[in-house]
């Protein structure tokens, strides 16, 4: 249970990070370390170089923008948890963060690290997917932006190239009175979710859903948007029975088997978690919660 030997680098600027990534072979970026350090201790990963981002300047901030916020990649999950701006404009994220690990891991864990590690059941991954976040990465050719729907490219694999580093994430806020909910099924508080559902709803004065976003986490290799369900909800003022039937479509997503649950159970949970999240979000959107 000890990390394998590696060379350690602690650059001070993003330019230095990009320079190191371009010259070093088999290098790994170390952010908050709450996923990479266990993998190093287990020797699941054996990098020749560790590039520590903790001393890079200017990567930790939460900044309000005209349509939402921009968050620096090295912003700790704890800082998001206690951010007034996040609580006010991104209540979905505020709620989801309560389920990320524990205080000790949120104190160190970063948003950028969580997104790049891209665990399919990670709470911030689901939030970014639901909020249609835009990810900013820096590389040898400068900066580029990646829409979050294009960010996951495989299991634990993001669209960030080996010579690039994620520097910031941009979020657009939903209108002031939107409904939101994050629910997950885990055996113990702080465990990885077996299945999670993140939802956002915009509802008109008559209680009709104008816009819906639903993300399922923990099902397969990455987070998935339940687009069919989103379309089915739009234009309706749903009751419990309507939601129950609409959420049945979530059973059709591909899911994987592991020691925690067989695929069929995950598919069952997808219908239940999405319904519970939507009930909660709808009650909040219509002022009944």
């Amino acid at each position, binding site marked *: 249970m000890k*990390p394998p030997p590696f060379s350690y680098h602690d650059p001070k600027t993003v330019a230095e990070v990009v320079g190191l990534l371009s010259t070093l072979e088999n290098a790994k970026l170390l952010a908050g370390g709450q996923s990479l350090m266990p993998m190093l201790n287990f020797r699941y990963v054996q990098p020749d170089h560790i590039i*520590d981002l903790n001393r890079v300047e200017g990567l930790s901030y939460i900044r309000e923008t005209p349509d939402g916020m921009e968050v620096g990649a090295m912003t700790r999950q704890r800082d998001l948890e206690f951010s007034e701006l996040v609580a006010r404009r991104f209540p979905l994220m505020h709620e989801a963060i309560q389920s990320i690990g524990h205080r*000790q891991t949120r104190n160190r864990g970063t948003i950028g690290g969580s997104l790049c590690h891209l665990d399919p059941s990670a709470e911030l991954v689901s939030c970014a997917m639901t909020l249609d976040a835009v990810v900013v990465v820096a590389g040898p050719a400068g900066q580029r932006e990646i829409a979050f729907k294009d960010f996951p490219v495989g299991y634990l694999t993001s669209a960030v190239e080996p010579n690039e580093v994620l520097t910031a994430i941009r979020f657009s806020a939903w209108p002031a009175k939107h409904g939101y909910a994050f629910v997950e099924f885990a055996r113990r508080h702080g465990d990885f979710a077996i299945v999670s559902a993140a939802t956002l709803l915009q509802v008109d004065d008559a209680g009709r859903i104008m816009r819906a976003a639903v993300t399922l986490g923990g099902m397969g290799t990455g987070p998935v948007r339940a687009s069919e369900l989103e379309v089915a909800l739009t234009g309706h003022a749903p009751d419990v029975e309507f939601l129950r039937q609409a959420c049945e479509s979530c059973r059709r997503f591909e899911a994987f088997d592991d020691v925690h649950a067989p695929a069929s159970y995950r598919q069952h949970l997808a219908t239940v978690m999405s319904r519970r999240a939507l009930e909660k979000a709808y009650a909040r959107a219509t002022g009944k919660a």
Partner: protein
Amino acid sequence: MGQTRKIALTVNGKRYEEEVEVRVTLADFIRHQLGLTGTHLGCEHGVCGACTILMDGRSARACLMLAVQADGHDFLTVEGIAPSPDKLHPLQQAFHENHGLQCGFCTPGMLTTLLEFLRDNPDPTEREVRIAISGNLCRCTGYQNIVISALDAAKRLQAEAEQKA
């Protein structure tokens, strides 16, 4: 021995300057190099919470950090909680009197975690205490007496604060 680095850090108010191998975790460094074996290692992958220490006042898992990352920071381990060698901290006293430990393996992590928690939430509910220690595994107590100890400690710390004020 692989690549090494010189680091300077403060642990329990004492300044150390040490040469460390860059792949050594902070937990192993604290135990083996500084000889502070109160910080325990259970799982070494961030699940059991036994190695919880305070870094600049915030709780963190010492097994999920490299010692080289500790350079320039201030740490508190279980050895630094008591105000003097013959006097326990109110939190420790509460554990002592409420049978908040049996084998004691999880206790350093419980104490450091609760130290931060009670500073941020001086008057917690039982549920809040249970969530606060949800990242610390105990296989002896069934948690009941730990929760009682934490709630008792909150009262003791509040009484102490009132006395000072």
